[in-house]
């Protein structure tokens, strides 16, 4: 099978590269081994973990340094545009972080956030009460923790709980009252009944916060609740699966396919053929001797979680292409004593050159680019740069392949 570009990895990184390339008329195939870490999205894309979020200098080996911080503003706009075309509005812009709320009530700096998510506004402290509404028996949302978090910021806050017979039915299974199941049931009449149940509980509130369970049932569920309760309804992230992440993944895949892209799920690249310093074809588990031939290749397999990197007691390696990896040699050095402190392994990844090209057997491969969290040098957790690094490297690689800068569409 012949394409212009074949991308190994179909998470946010692979999709951003893929969409950017497909928009420019390239034929692109994405081979994805299972679904991606986007399914655990906090509802925000993070750029940098400080109050401002603008980057003037970073360590020389950081992916941002390779990308060039001067390009981040542009990539930021393109990201918003790609999400918007896919049908997902993001709020926020480069250089001015806002505060999102975490499932346990911690306010964290974020760069771009899904439109329906709660972001903190200092004016809230004197705007009346906020009510955090949970769903009875749903164990992955914590109204008390979120309310406490807002109270710490001086916002008057209450909690309430609602329930519906159809939601109760989910409980017939001891495990399956999950965000996605709830979301699918929030459609039609159920939304109205939920709204009317909420109305007396949130009377007079300046805002209502609900778990992020909208988008897989009726698309306008949240707005309809707003109309009934008479105040803005925003969502806060749940633990486990993120409905917004599922929604975004689905829309981005549809966008990519709509542009003519081929998205293959549940398969993985198992070998590659390299000739004269270039990858000429890759083979996958499912397609066996039918080779994927392309001019350029992108490695977007993610980090350990997505099996883009593999650790054994002896070494850490990149299993898809056998690309050179940056990591500490001895396993004693991979981890820190405390789980919540900076973990060295989070920075591990493949070594890339100034054009994001990887190295195999000691030499740079001319047409194989690494993008996303598999690129070495960033600590997504402690620097709060996970999504930023993903979209910046993904778009830069697309530009490298296209040989030109991507256009920025100005949006209103």
């Amino acid at each position: 099978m012949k394409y212009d570009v074949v991308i190994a990895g179909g998470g946010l990184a692979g999709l951003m590269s893929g969409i950017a390339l497909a928009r420019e008329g390239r034929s692109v195939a994405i081979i994805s081994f299972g679904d991606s870490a986007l399914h655990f999205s906090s509802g925000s894309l993070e750029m940098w973990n400080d109050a401002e979020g603008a980057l003037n200098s970073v360590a020389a080996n950081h992916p941002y340094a390779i990308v060039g911080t001067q390009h981040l503003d542009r990539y930021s706009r393109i990201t918003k545009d790609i999400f918007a075309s896919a049908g997902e509005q993001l709020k926020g812009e480069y250089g001015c972080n806002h505060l999102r709320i975490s499932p346990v009530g911690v306010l964290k700096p974020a760069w771009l956030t899904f439109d329906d998510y709660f972001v903190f506004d200092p004016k809230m402290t004197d705007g009346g009460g906020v009510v955090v509404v949970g769903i009875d028996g749903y164990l992955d949302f914590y109204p008390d923790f979120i309310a406490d978090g807002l109270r710490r910021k001086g916002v008057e806050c209450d909690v309430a709980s609602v329930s519906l017979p159809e939601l109760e039915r989910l409980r017939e299974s001891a495990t399956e009252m999950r965000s996605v199941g709830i979301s699918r049931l929030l459609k039609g009449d159920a939304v109205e009944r939920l709204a009317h149940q909420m109305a007396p509980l949130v009377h007079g509130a300046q805002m209502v916060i609900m778990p992020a369970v909208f988008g897989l049932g009726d698309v306008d569920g949240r707005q309809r609740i707003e109309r009934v309760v008479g105040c803005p309804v925003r969502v806060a992230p749940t633990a486990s699966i993120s409905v917004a992440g599922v929604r975004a993944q689905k829309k981005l895949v549809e966008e990519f396919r709509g542009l003519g892209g081929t998205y293959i799920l549940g398969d993985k690249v198992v070998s590659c053929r390299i000739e004269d310093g270039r990858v000429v074809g890759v083979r996958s588990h499912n397609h066996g001797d039918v080779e994927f031939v392309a001019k350029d290749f992108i490695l977007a397999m993610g980090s350990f979680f997505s099996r883009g990197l593999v650790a054994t007691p002896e070494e850490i390696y990149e299993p898809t292409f056998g690309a050179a990896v940056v990591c500490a040699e001895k396993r004693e050095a991979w981890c820190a004593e405390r789980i919540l402190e900076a973990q060295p392994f989070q920075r591990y990844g493949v070594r890339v050159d100034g054009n994001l090209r990887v190295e195999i057997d000691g030499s740079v491969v001319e047409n194989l680019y690494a993008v996303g969290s598999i690129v070495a040098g960033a600590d997504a957790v402690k620097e709060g740069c996970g999504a930023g690094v993903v979209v910046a490297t993904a778009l830069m690689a697309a530009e490298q392949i296209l040989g030109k800068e991507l256009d920025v569409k100005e949006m209103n």
Partner: protein
Amino acid sequence: MAAKFSKEYDVIIIGGGATGAGTARDCALRGLKVLLVERKDFATGATGRNHGLLHSGARYAVTDGESAAECIAENMILRRVARHCVEETEGLFITLPEDDLSYQSLFIESCRRAGIKAEAIDPREALRLEPSVNPTLIGAVKVPDGAVDPFRLVSANVLDARLHGAEVLNYHQVESLLREQDRIVGVELRNLTTGESMQVRSRVVVNAAGIWGAKIAELAGVKLNMFPAKGSLLVFGHRINNVVINRCRKPADADILVPGDTISLIGTTSLRIPFEEVDKNVVTPEEVDVLLREGAKLAPTLATTRILRAYSGVRPLVAADNDPSGRSISRGIVCLDHAERDGLEGFVTITGGKLMTYRLMAEWVTDLVCRKLGVSVGCTTASTPLPGSKDVPSRAKSRKEFISLGVGEKGAVGRHGDKADEIGFANSRDAALVCECEQVSVAELRYAIQSLNATKLVDLRRRTRLGMGTCQGHICVMRAAGVLAENNVNSTDVLDEAASFIQERWRGVKPVAWGDALVEAQFTQWFYDGVCGLSELDRQKTNQSEEK
């Protein structure tokens, strides 16, 4: 100022391990007024940090016939009285090509002498019995080994002690022993949760603090000659074997593979450590390598099985009084009347021994206490079933009934035996699973909070199996925090506990953090720190108090 504790007890037992809990139960069953104190939670010391092997005694048969005989007797007793804590798996002692097969006959002979049924079987029969066993084996002996869950065992002993009037305080540390002339008359305790101190009086104080017993003895001004010996183990992601596998040779490192609940355990190493390191429990990379290398000889699949975590415990080895160097260490039971030994009345020490003989140790020391108090009631713990093992759970009288239960009920019945009758699953809210790996429901957590002295998240782990499964708490910790918060525990405190919980899990994962364990660790940090921002919670709380 120390708040006075109004009550006076017949006996105060220091140490909430198996021995202390067993002693509290035995004393309570004999009608004594009992207080059990523990500085952390129950079963946090060596009790909860071993193989969970229901020893047949075979392992000691050649080297220590007396211990072996004690083991087999207790083994048979526990099968009766602690049925819900025991898995009757049987055990194999295998001889590999590199071992001396002639040891086998000495082994069998020694077992017989100790009263342990040991039967040489054909290696092919051994493979049929336990398909995971190393197929190159040249000899096998079948013995009545089994598995015992130490957390459940201690919990049932504590519960029964309380049901018979004993009072129980976990998270209370002994600050000093109250002394009047040549007599110990009570203890001064500090509540580690509130920081408050109090004095409690009793006619006898029992030191059952395991390796920390040496410190308690120091508080009493007497010297115990103890040597901490660290043993490390690895926990695997699922059950590899259903029969205990041992090496038929002189006891050495990593020569026992025990199935227990949903996992298998390989151990142990053995290393003398200084007293300063007793609370550290660090498993070194070298220990991990030895455990894996030697373990794979027992069951080769072990080399390719996911490792969940590593942990270590410290055995309280006691040297004879005339052997300060500790060269001739016994693993036998040491029961000391300090009145006789040191001229100090009202203070006794029970130590040495092993998890298997906890009941016998409790019996000996309770006999001693009773003699001192002039009580002549005999011991009944060898024949009185523990709560949970008294009856067949009413909702699962047959296998068919068990299969028809909901997943959370199955988990609860499996862990709590007939006490599961007290766990309500009436509404679907309570039947919901908090811990999906280990099938722990909201109802079971509530039962543990209300009936089993669980006040913290980490206690809930030991009372149930919360967070002990594949994800090591990734899914369940926040959910459990939510349930705990509903039971009137302050939310920020609960979040601190959640952080402690995942840190405690991480401590065990870190020594084996590669492969799937590292995948899980990355996922855990992403969620708890990346998405939730748990590490920033402290900072934000501090800022708030400054703003105030």
